């Protein structure tokens, strides 16, 4: 190092270094090399499967010819496909709204239990989320069974006639939503509980002194302070619920009469069970634009609020 203390080693070595060595020494090159593992993971697990799915969706049924958008055209003209779109939207939106409401209510209740008792309740309420959904859905299937239904047995006690839970289209839709809400609400609960705990107590005190009632504190302090968590949780859950597979597969297998199919189960039925892989790929790719629009608006709101508050 020279007397003035500056880093002069690269300069003195520069005249003899090849252009390749210079390239390796550049900060941008080093940064690229260091992010290479992540790029490889994304390329291998996200970009390649997505690109391959797009490629598959453009082949003919025997996968020996390029058919361009034929699969999409057939789907758009298919009545069953539009039923799947409608059922997927109904299922995802209803289930996410219910999960969010129930999760918020549970989180609020838990938040007001003293810490000692809270852990016990928190643990118990998380159980549905911890059990593998394929297994717990089997349990629900048993409870919905037309012959042995324990729910109908309970209803009979209060003189309500038996409900054809999985046999009648509307009831089957309700059943699928009930199971999804039962499984997913604890996730919302735990996220909202964390968000509730992060709202500074002094804001509530300031609001109480400002004259806010309990409801007004919720409306003007709690909800605005939780908006980012609510948005992100809803987005995340919307994506997962939209792409749900196991509950419908175990509970109704898409029936009765294909009326409870979601994108994922329908794609499986068309692609794997019926052996039309290109069309199955086209079904699953239909989810993408819908979710991209949701994600764009929700994440834009989150970024804006982060800049303003935090």
């Amino acid at each position, binding site marked *: 190092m020279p007397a003035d203390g500056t880093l002069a080693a690269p300069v003195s070595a520069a005249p003899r270094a090849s252009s390749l060595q210079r390239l390796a020494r550049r900060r941008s090159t080093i940064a690229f090399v260091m992010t290479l593992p992540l790029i490889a993971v994304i390329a291998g697990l996200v970009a390649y499967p997505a690109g391959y799915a797009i490629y598959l969706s453009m082949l003919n049924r025997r996968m020996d010819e390029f058919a361009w958008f034929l699969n999409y055209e057939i789907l758009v003209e298919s009545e069953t496909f539009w039923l799947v779109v409608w059922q997927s939207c109904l299922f995802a939106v209803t289930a996410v709204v219910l999960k969010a409401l129930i999760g918020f209510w549970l989180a609020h209740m838990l938040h007001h239990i003293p810490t000692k008792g809270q852990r016990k309740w928190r643990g118990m309420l998380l159980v549905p989320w911890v059990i593998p959904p394929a297994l717990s859905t089997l349990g629900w299937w048993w409870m919905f069974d037309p012959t042995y239904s324990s729910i109908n047995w309970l209803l009979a006690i209060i003189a309500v006639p038996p409900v054809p839970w999985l046999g009648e289209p509307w009831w089957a839709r309700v059943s699928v939503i009930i199971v999804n809400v039962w499984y997913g609400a604890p996730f919302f609960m735990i996220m909202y509980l964390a968000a509730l705990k992060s709202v500074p107590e002094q804001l509530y005190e300031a*609001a109480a002194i*400002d*004259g806010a009632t309990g409801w007004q504190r919720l409306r003007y302090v709690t909800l605005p302070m939780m908006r980012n968590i609510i948005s992100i949780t809803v987005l995340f859950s919307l994506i997962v619920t939209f792409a749900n597979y196991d509950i419908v597969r175990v509970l109704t297998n898409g029936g009765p009469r294909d009326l409870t199919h979601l994108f994922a189960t329908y794609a499986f039925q068309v692609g794997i069970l019926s052996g039309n892989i290109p069309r199955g790929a086209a079904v699953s790719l239909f989810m993408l634009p819908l979710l991209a629009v949701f994600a764009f608006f929700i994440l834009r709101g989150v970024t804006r609020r982060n800049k303003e508050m935090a």
Partner: protein
Amino acid sequence: MAQVSLRSLVKEYDGGVQAVKGIDLEIADHEFVVLVGPSGCGKTTTLRMIAGLEEITRGEIAIGGTVVNDIPPRDRDIAMVFQNYALYPHMTVFDNMAFGLLLRKFPREEIRRRVDEAARILDIASLLDRKPKALSGGQRQRVAMGRAIVRNPKVFLFDEPLSNLDAKLRVQMRTEIKKVHQTVKTTTVYVTHDQVEAMTLADRVVVMNHGVIEQVGPPQELYHRPATRFVAGFIGSPAMNFIPARLEAASGALNLHLPGGIVLPVPEERTGRYEAAKGREVLFGIRPEHLTERREGRATYAEIEITPEVIEPMGMETLVHFHLDGARDLCARLDPTVPAAPGAPIRLTADLANMHLLDPQSGRVL
């Protein structure tokens, strides 16, 4: 506007810990009262009980003659400024200030008028559209005060509002708070652990320690006539010196025998007051400003020789730290022109007209 009365106020937490042990205090209309004391003395708990944020275990709080024990904070007609401001981060400055009025269903024009007026007083009119994140500490503090002012409440409560600001801004905001009080004249209860804030702001200072009130009085009275050792040591910076001594009679007069053979004559006008303590061990208290470089000309002046340990030149004065046998951490305030060096003995003058004698057992000033 209203007076605030605290009667036999007790706050007991689960497990029997008493934070406030039965205090009585009358705060007059328009008065600025500062509760001061070290951490854990119960001052913030007292303030929070007045605000209604903390339940009262026993006793009574009345605001404007009405007992408010069971009245929720929103119906007490008070406004509070918190230590970390507690501004709503998702609202603009205007909305933060207007929130209380909005909830009370004030007409829109009236809200606009009041917020504009408060913003003018606090010089934050140009910040009304900003969010709290875009403000500096001092500006946030002003907004928090603005939120209190617009409500025009019966009582202002301040909970250590300046402790998050840097030293320079703290002095500036202290003046602002005093100015605002002189303008709006609302009864104010202000909590701080900083005795300088207490002395500069208060009409009356309430010194608290271990959940009880040690002394209540105007700042000058607390400074010159402290009632207890705690108050004497807490008010004033650097703190008062305490030296163990013995009070002895000497041919019609009284002498103080300090460690190291130092004998100080008690001024004549004080002998009657200290007569009862004759022959007893006492604590001799004297403030650093009354322990100065050698002076002459007054009968109450007495000399002490000391050896400085540390010299602190402050510019307008020089602080000399030293110890005597049996008394450590003593301090004298010297004129900066007086030469003093660590280890070189110098003679100081103690102005005994300003001395205090304390009972070492009870801690009461005699």
